[in-house]
């Protein structure tokens, strides 16, 4: 009876009034984002635009005036465009074959294509050198070539395409799957053969998705630090140049100015992307899809083509990983192929701290990112709190910001009072979280949109506070999305190099910088062994944790 009267009392904005407990977290989130996103960027900006204590655009303009830096900028753009273009084509073909061609081995193809998303991108450079370098197993050993092509534009393109196309593939896979199947069926019955369906219906409808893939790859290429450091000796790009300027020239203001220059095109791309996604919303028009089972083309030529294409790409990827494994178990890959376990022993002893710290900090980051991401998603998608748009914007900013810039911003902002965090675990966890929270939010918002608002309303009308609704109704329905976001945060955190290279400290060692310095020193075996251990650990987490948590976390009960 008491509850019944509760409903009868007029409440002008039930969402706000009833959920005080939940909404008290809102300022906390705002503060967190201000501290870890806005503040470091501001400090970076300040560092870049002041000279001799005065405000000046001199550093930035000075850099742009130099032909060397203009060349670097051009290199970066050219590489980004090439990687984006090639990677998107590859990803489109792969996603198409996986969703539309009747062929065996799809599970295997999918697994292989996802390997690069869970391993440190620099791994690509390592195995590329071993396979295709001047004395590479394939270029030199098999073909007798001694090509320097690898060290520069082509090598970088190859490394980045291999490392990043799977991200675009994942994106496109979902879009290919989500497209209303009846559209393609309609085209088919109207006389279009599979190729025509692809070019006249599927691809035009996926244009926004393809653009997303292009922009995603573009920004990944821009942000990549490891591969340019290892392969781009004669092909300087911005991310590496920032690193070299700071590590080599000890010139923080110039590094910050370069970071600003890097930030500019990336931000532009990001906003272009946002506009595009908003305008071209028709890809999702087929909400009432009549059938989600898409045409599976069985024409022999299509099937063989699909198999050859996916098989070829898989072969390229597997070759990379086989090489890493080979490097890990041989004494000196390329010179002395005696089998040995000493690299693994060393990875598990000498680098044990790095492994333990990486796993621990990444786990902490995924917990924070999971909770904060869900809350922000809830505020953005379900509440009417003022400033939620700005909150979403700020939290999504790190999508646009390359890891190098985030790391540099952190290094500048947090090594002085009032926020003295250098050397702490917090700074690393914060860097991890900032880098991955946009994805947690996106997946949370997307999942929330699937849950009908009437469920919230029903819960509220029965007297639940916002917090209770979130806890008892929404969270159980969102478990798979939350878990996916957390696992993503975890993998992204353990594999990132650019975001942490400026914030690692002796107290908290991380794996990727360790691999980089091992590769620098020529300890290919140890670098390879450590990479293998890392990949195995990540695979265990990805496949083990959801299994451990049970079915509800994997599939969810949402319709």
């Amino acid at each position, binding site marked *: 009876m008491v509850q019944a009267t509760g409903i009868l009392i007029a409440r002008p904005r039930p969402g706000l009034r009833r959920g005080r407990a939940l909404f008290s977290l809102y300022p906390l989130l705002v503060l967190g984002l201000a501290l870890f996103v806005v503040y470091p960027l501001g400090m970076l900006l300040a560092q870049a635009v002041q000279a001799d204590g005065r405000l000046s655009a001199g550093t930035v303009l000075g850099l742009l005036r130099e032909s060397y830096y203009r060349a670097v900028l051009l290199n970066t753009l050219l590489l980004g465009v090439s990687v984006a273009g090639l990677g998107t084509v590859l990803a489109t073909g792969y996603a198409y074959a996986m969703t539309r061609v009747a062929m065996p081995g799809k599970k295997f193809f999918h697994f292989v294509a996802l390997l690069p998303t869970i391993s440190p991108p620099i791994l690509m450079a390592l195995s590329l050198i071993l396979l295709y370098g001047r004395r590479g197993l394939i270029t030199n050993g098999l073909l007798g070539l001694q090509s320097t092509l690898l060290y520069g534009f082509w090598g970088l393109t190859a490394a980045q395409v291999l490392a990043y196309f799977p991200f675009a593939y994942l994106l496109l896979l979902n879009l290919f799957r989500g497209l*209303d199947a*009846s*559209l393609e*069926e*309609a*085209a*088919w*019955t*109207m*006389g*279009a*053969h599979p190729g*025509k369906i692809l070019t*006249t*219906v599927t691809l*035009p*409808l996926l*244009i926004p998705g393809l653009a997303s893939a292009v922009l995603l790859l573009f920004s990944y290429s821009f942000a990549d630090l490891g591969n340019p450091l290892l392969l781009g000796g004669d092909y300087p790009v911005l991310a590496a140049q920032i690193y070299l300027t700071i590590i080599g020239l000890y010139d923080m203001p110039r590094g910050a100015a370069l970071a600003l220059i890097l930030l500019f095109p990336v931000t532009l791309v990001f906003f272009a992307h946002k506009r595009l996604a908003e305008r071209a919303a*028709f890809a999702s*028009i*087929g909400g*009432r*899809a*009549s059938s989600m089972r898409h*045409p599976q083309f*069985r*024409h022999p030529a299509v099937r063989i083509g699909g198999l050859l294409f996916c098989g070829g790409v898989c072969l390229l990827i597997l070759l990379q990983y086989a090489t890493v494994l080979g490097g890990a178990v041989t004494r000196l890959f390329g010179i002395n192929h005696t089998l040995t376990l000493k690299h693994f022993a060393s990875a598990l002893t000498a680098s044990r701290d790095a492994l333990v710290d990486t796993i621990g900090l990444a786990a902490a980051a995924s917990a924070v990112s999971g909770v904060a991401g869900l809350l922000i998603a809830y505020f953005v998608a379900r509440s009417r709190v003022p400033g939620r748009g700005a909150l979403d914007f700020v939290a999504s900013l790190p999508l646009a910001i390359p890891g190098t810039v985030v790391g540099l911003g952190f290094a500048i902002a947090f090594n002085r009072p009032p926020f003295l965090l250098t050397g702490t675990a917090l700074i690393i966890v914060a860097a991890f979280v900032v880098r991955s929270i946009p994805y947690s939010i996106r997946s949370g918002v997307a999942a929330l949109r699937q849950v009908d608002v009437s469920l919230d309303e029903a819960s509220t009308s029965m007297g639940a506070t916002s917090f209770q609704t979130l806890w008892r109704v929404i969270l159980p329905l969102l478990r798979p999305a939350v878990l996916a976001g957390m696992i993503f945060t975890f993998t992204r955190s353990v594999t990132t190099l650019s975001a942490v290279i400026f914030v690692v400290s002796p107290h908290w060692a991380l794996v990727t910088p360790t691999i980089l310095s091992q590769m620098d020193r020529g300890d290919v075996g140890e670098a390879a062994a450590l990479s293998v251990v890392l990949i195995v650990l990540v695979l265990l987490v990805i496949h083990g944790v959801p299994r451990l948590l049970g079915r509800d976390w994997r599939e969810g009960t949402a319709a």
Partner: protein
Amino acid sequence: MSTGTAKALELRGLRKAYRLPGGRSVPAVRDFSLRVEPGEFVTLLGPSGSGKTTVLRTLAGLEEPDAGEILLDGVPLTPLPPHQRHIGLVFQNYALFPHLTVFENVAYSLRIRRTPDVRIRDEVEAALKTLGLEELASRLPGQLSGGQQQRVALARALVMHPDLLLFDEPLSNLDAKLRFQVRSELRRLQKRLGITALYVTHDQAEAMSLSDRIAVMRDGRVEQVGTPEAIYARPATLFVADFIGRVNILPGRVVDRGGSGVTVEALDRRWNVAADRCPGAAGEVLVLLRPEAVGLTEAGQGDLAGTVEELEYRGDQTEYRIQIGGVHVVVVESSPRRTRRIVEGDRVGLRVFEDTLHILPAQREG
């Protein structure tokens, strides 16, 4: 706008099972056979899950049958991929290409076949005119109402002069009034163009009003094929009787067989049923009585007497639930027939239109 000569469709022994991820397979269509005459409009009617859409998709080539033959004027279709079948399909959600204008949507199949631009313009304009869509040619599908989208989908299917026109519940996304209007338009158009058509729906009223013949489906098989009248008046099975329209099912017993029919005892009274309405009936039977085949009269008059237990007033009709000696019978009457309103608890007399009684063997259907 007319097709060449209409073609005959023949389906023989069609089977299709879906394999589930666990390795189990679920039969969707089992041993389905049907012949559709040239220019005929046949509807597959059945509850959801009865396999009717699977039959349609198999016809279009979107599903591969596990067994069976599909012949169009005697030519087997099964080996052909969808794009070589020349079959028009109107989807439940219309499947209009959201990135193309109405004109381009309709022109799609012609462009695919590399038709010269001039002809495309003529053909598309003719198709749009047929469906009264001339004004909308340059719109995008997102800017159309549901009814307009439905017409575009139809125009798009017609413009390719298909050998066969398939409809997959095309009216289910329209509101009731519009559905009624489009229904009659569709029928007129199909008759005018003389295209052989196969229509899938779970709405019996739609099936009745549109079709030359109806094939009632259940669990992947055809339960009964016939004209709407035959299906309604002489259902072959209890399922058909129950699925199409409403029916009172009364236990009865055959007491006498004559040359012209049988005498059956039900509701403590004897009825004469014509021979074509009691296929193979003997002993215990079920007597089917349509609710509208009964009229109410004053108490003491008519064939039977009963008490009104419940009534539901619907404006144009009134439905009564009447108890007759322990058995409940539902009666539907067109409403304003008499001055005195009947109320619950009234004793009434019932007049049964004996010709409409239909008898099915009791053991069928379990």
